[in-house]
């Protein structure tokens, strides 16, 4: 037998070839026309036994400086929140881990019920009526929202607040040409978005997407932004952080049509950017325009409750070129991690989580001897102005074992001296003290 995970013995193989009525494996590949057959051996690195594999991967992993090696205050969309141990214990169960999309509901009640519970949690958090089973991430769900808005309004302009995560804006712009959409961005004033500017831009727009909290960590006047969008007949779409929703108002409560965002901060490890889950929730009006899987409740032959994938006439395998999306594979397992974490936190834990993050951010603001970039209410991130280029500050602080945060100059002009510091509940006041001391030293 060869390397890898194969199960056939020589004898099996011979018996099977005989049953098929061919004499060799090559015979099976006769249907591949000779000119397009690959004759050689693949030029790939040699096979590794499992222990060698682990050692090699450990060596690769050791070349990365992860949160835990370095005292890190990086955030800017992905956060080092604590993922409770039960998440992995549950997600690693083979019945969840190794199942496909629940096409056959009687085989898959576990996953289906879990997704139904996830949809419920997302609706509760966002104040929406319907959630899909997950989108790819918090970036692509923005494109999904645009697609919904286009078809719901018949309009082709999308308005994005510039305070929205820059990568979210990039993804929307990548998708826009194919969707036949034009994208307009609205700048910020002193770190937040002006509702009047939004009102102006929203004229004739399909949707306005704005963040809460925003990319600078500031709290937007989200109700005003939503109202401005809706007054212009555009859909109001809030891009929100789940960890804030024990403290900040649910988008549904201030009139949003959709709420979207990145789920990573609840239940997923950072993992260099993925896989995570994006959530997409909407008012009932849009249920038949939603992309991706949706689980619905039904009954079985005995009248007992059960769950199935539903509203499939939206989807590609039925509607094909008229589908609401091409999505099949989504991020179920990651969303399940979100559900488990939300259940573990409960409403009280979620609120406390937000309070602890906010309190640390407040402490950082007070303790760090640098001016804040924006004097605004904040949630868990604070932007500071540095007396030297932020990149240099990061480099020098890292040499002292502290990563102070994200350089906003990577995305925003005129912000080369701004550093965005993220505070999760895993950081302590002593950690903030250390950050403050290091920043003081490297900024001197």
């Amino acid at each position, binding site marked *: 037998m060869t390397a890898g995970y194969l199960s056939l013995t020589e004898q099996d193989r011979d018996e099977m070839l005989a049953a098929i009525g061919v004499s060799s494996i090559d015979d099976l590949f006769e*249907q591949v026309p000779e000119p397009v*057959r690959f004759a050689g051996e693949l030029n790939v690195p040699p096979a590794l036994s499992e222990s060698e594999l682990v050692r090699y991967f450990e060596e690769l992993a050791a070349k990365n400086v992860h949160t835990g090696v370095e005292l890190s205050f990086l955030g800017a969309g992905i956060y080092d929140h604590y993922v409770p141990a039960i998440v992995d214990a549950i997600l690693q169960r083979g019945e969840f881990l190794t199942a496909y999309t629940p096409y056959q509901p009687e085989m898959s009640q576990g996953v289906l019920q879990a997704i139904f519970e996830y949809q419920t949690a997302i609706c509760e958090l966002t104040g929406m009526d319907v959630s899909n089973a997950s989108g790819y991430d918090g970036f692509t769900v923005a494109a999904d929202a645009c697609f919904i808005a286009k078809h719901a309004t018949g309009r082709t302009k999308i308005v994005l607040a510039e305070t929205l995560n820059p990568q979210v804006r990039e993804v929307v712009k990548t998708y826009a040409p194919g969707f036949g959409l034009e994208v307009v961005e609205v700048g910020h004033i002193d770190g937040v978005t002006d509702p009047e500017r939004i009102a102006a831009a929203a004229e004739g727009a399909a949707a306005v997407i704005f963040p809460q909290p925003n990319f600078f960590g500031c709290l937007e006047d989200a109700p005003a932004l939503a109202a401005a969008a809706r007054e212009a007949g555009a859909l109001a779409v809030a891009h929100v952080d789940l960890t804030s929703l024990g403290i900040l108002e649910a988008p549904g409560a201030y009139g949003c049509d959709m709420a979207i965002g990145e789920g990573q901060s609840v239940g997923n490890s950072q993992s260099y950017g993925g896989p995570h889950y994006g959530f997409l929730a909407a008012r009932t009006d849009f249920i038949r325009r939603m992309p991706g899987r949706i689980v619905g409740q039904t009954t079985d032959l005995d009248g007992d409750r059960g769950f199935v994938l539903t509203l499939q006439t939206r989807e590609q395998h039925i509607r094909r070129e008229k589908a609401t999306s091409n999505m099949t594979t989504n991020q179920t397992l990651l969303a399940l991690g979100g559900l488990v974490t939300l259940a573990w936190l409960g409403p009280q834990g979620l609120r406390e989580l937000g309070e602890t993050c906010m309190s640390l951010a407040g402490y950082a603001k007070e303790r760090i001897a640098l001016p804040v970039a924006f004097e605004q209410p904040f949630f868990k991130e604070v932007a500071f102005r540095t007396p030297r280029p932020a990149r240099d500050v990061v480099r020098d602080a890292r040499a002292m074992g502290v990563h102070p945060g994200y350089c906003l100059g990577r995305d925003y002009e005129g912000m080369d001296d701004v550093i965005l510091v993220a505070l999760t509940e895993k950081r302590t006041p002593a950690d903030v003290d250390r950050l403050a001391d290091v920043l003081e030293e490297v900024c001197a």
Partner: protein
Amino acid sequence: MELIYEKSQAGRRAGRVPNYGLPVPDVPEALARTSPPRLPELAENEIMRHFTNLADRNFGIDTGFYPLGSCTMKYNPRVNERVSKLPGFAHLHPHQEDEGAQGALELMWELQAILAEVAGLPSVTLQPAAGSQGELTGLMVMRAYFNDRGEGDQRDTIITADTAHGTNPASVTMAGYKLEKVATTERGNLDLDDLRAKVNERTAGLMLTNPSTVGLFDEGIAEVADIFHEQGALLYYDGANLNAIVGRSRPGDMGFDIVHYNLHKTFSQPHGGGGPGGGPVAVRADLEPFLPSPQVVKEGDTFRLERDRPKSIGRVRGFAGPFGVFVRSYAYMRAYGPDLQAMSETAVLNANYLLAELKDDYEVAYDRLCMHEFVLSARALKKEYGITALDIAKRLMDYGVHPPTIYFPLVVPEALMIEPTETEPKERLDAFIAVMKTIAREAAENPELLKGAPHTRPVRRLDEVKAAKEPIVRHAFGERVPTGA
């Protein structure tokens, strides 16, 4: 089983969050939460039980045989989980400076090299989140390429096979293209005459799965490629069926210009009940400038994420892709090394063995050797006994087997699409053969048994029509509904 919300009780809790005793800043009143979300309130004990009990109501590859056609449900090695959870990978922040992420970048670089070798195409982006997004990315690359050549407006049509997976036409629309369909011959190849009639200067490209969704290798693939290339159009390879040909045939050698891979199929990323996946895309050299941003580049011995890519279509998702998926798939590849071809050879052998043993009991859609999967039809059983593909699927459950894909591809009536994968031992195949023969007998002798199936699952057959008619897509707090088992 009760919903987790139905087990909830006010004031109960599991997790505790650090409280450092610092003052909590005020939230402006207009922005503050007015009523708390009704999240579950349980102690950890009961959360663990809830999900353990849910898991017991779910079937995975670890539970048994899962021959779900087109989904390549192979064994998911646990060592891949182990390495993906190494802190250096799992806790690496995506905004970490390149200098602090050299191991991750090296891994991605090495993974790209193997993917390129497997496809026979030199340039790879790892960014797409799944096959479908790979498709869309590929079509966007096509558009960018034609725009760059000044043919962007002229070329507005993509051709797909009538056997195509639903994602192909859906992607075509999302990419802003028109769709044209081409017929399949009785042997399961693309109809070359139909194709010649449809390919012209308005054609941007072809999207094709090869082996196709009926599990057959297109014998005319070289001619197909010529037809498109002669018209200046491109060929896109839907890699969902790549598991059939690794090390035996390469899409690039067949003439494809753009290829996506489904890491969650061919390269064993566990599908997790719906996802995550990974849908890297490989292209020929002159298409490289159009690939998404950022790209991993190597300079001397160091790696870097290149963001300055002026011709790129831009970013299709966050960061550099689903990195955790890369770790698992790369580990899978490294467990095989150059023996990767044995993976595909065995997948094809297993499928042909099943086909050979079942073709006397079920109608076969195409009477040829198959590749890694094949399609049976229950048309005859339906006519004779009123037994549909759905009934057979449900009855398989009673025998502890996950049903195959049914009613796809659409060109085969009452289709049962069976893909055993390479990791199954002969004993499992033999047991499946025996069960399928039994069910064929039962269809004749006791059709009601099949109509009422499944009989042994936690729920009986579910009413999907009702679910769609009056959708209940979230828990209605307070209103109790009858619960199953």
